């Protein structure tokens, strides 16, 4: 029990969830904006999508999928914790969520490169 008291899975899960949520919320308008370009010209969109071939953009995109995955599984974990009257294997749930997130984003990443 030495060390910092926030040093436990549930608090990290909270932090991760908040940061990923925030990241997604900032990305969301940008994402919508890019797709919205399709109204004016599919070419503009294409131009942008070519961009996405660049490694740095790939990484950024991977980051987004990662965020979504993290937030998604973290959210599922929270919903389960809050809505299902289970006895409390909270920490396992938290760990599972992170594992799930890595799995999905890992698959995405492997596919992307």
């Amino acid at each position, binding site marked *: 029990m030495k060390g910092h008291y926030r040093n436990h899975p549930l608090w990290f899960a909270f932090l991760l969830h908040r940061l990923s949520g925030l990241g997604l*919320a900032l990305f969301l308008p940008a994402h*919508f904006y890019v797709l919205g370009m399709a109204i004016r010209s*599919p070419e503009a969109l294409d131009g942008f999508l070519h961009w996405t071939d660049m490694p740095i953009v790939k990484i950024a995109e991977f980051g987004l999928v990662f965020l*979504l995955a993290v937030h*998604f599984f973290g959210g599922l974990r929270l*919903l389960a914790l809050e809505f299902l009257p289970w006895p409390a294997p909270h920490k396992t749930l938290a760990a599972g969520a992170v594992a799930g997130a890595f799995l*999905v984003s890992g698959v995405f990443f492997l*596919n992307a490169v």
Partner: protein
Amino acid sequence: MLDLRLYLAQRLSAMVMVPFVFVHLGVMIYAIQGGLSASEILGRTQGSLFWFLFYGMFVVASSLHAAIGLRVIVHEVTGLRGLLLAALTWGGFVVFFFLGARAVTAVTMI
């Protein structure tokens, strides 16, 4: 800062998004194979009522969800409250929703 209604709105929108995100993630993993192109995306989605409803509901849910999420963070970080906080929440929602609606129409309407 949340009360029961905002909380429910956020949780319900999260639940609504579960299948959407699932599919969305799947589509992205699938689509990224071989790179993205506008025509590929548009070819799949344009004129499809299914995708219109799919992305339409996704946008509504995520706008609501994200607006409320930001509200919480803003309140907890800056201490903002009252009317200003409400204005920010709904302002956020409107921005998300407007951009989102534009995107959906762009990709699904001909």
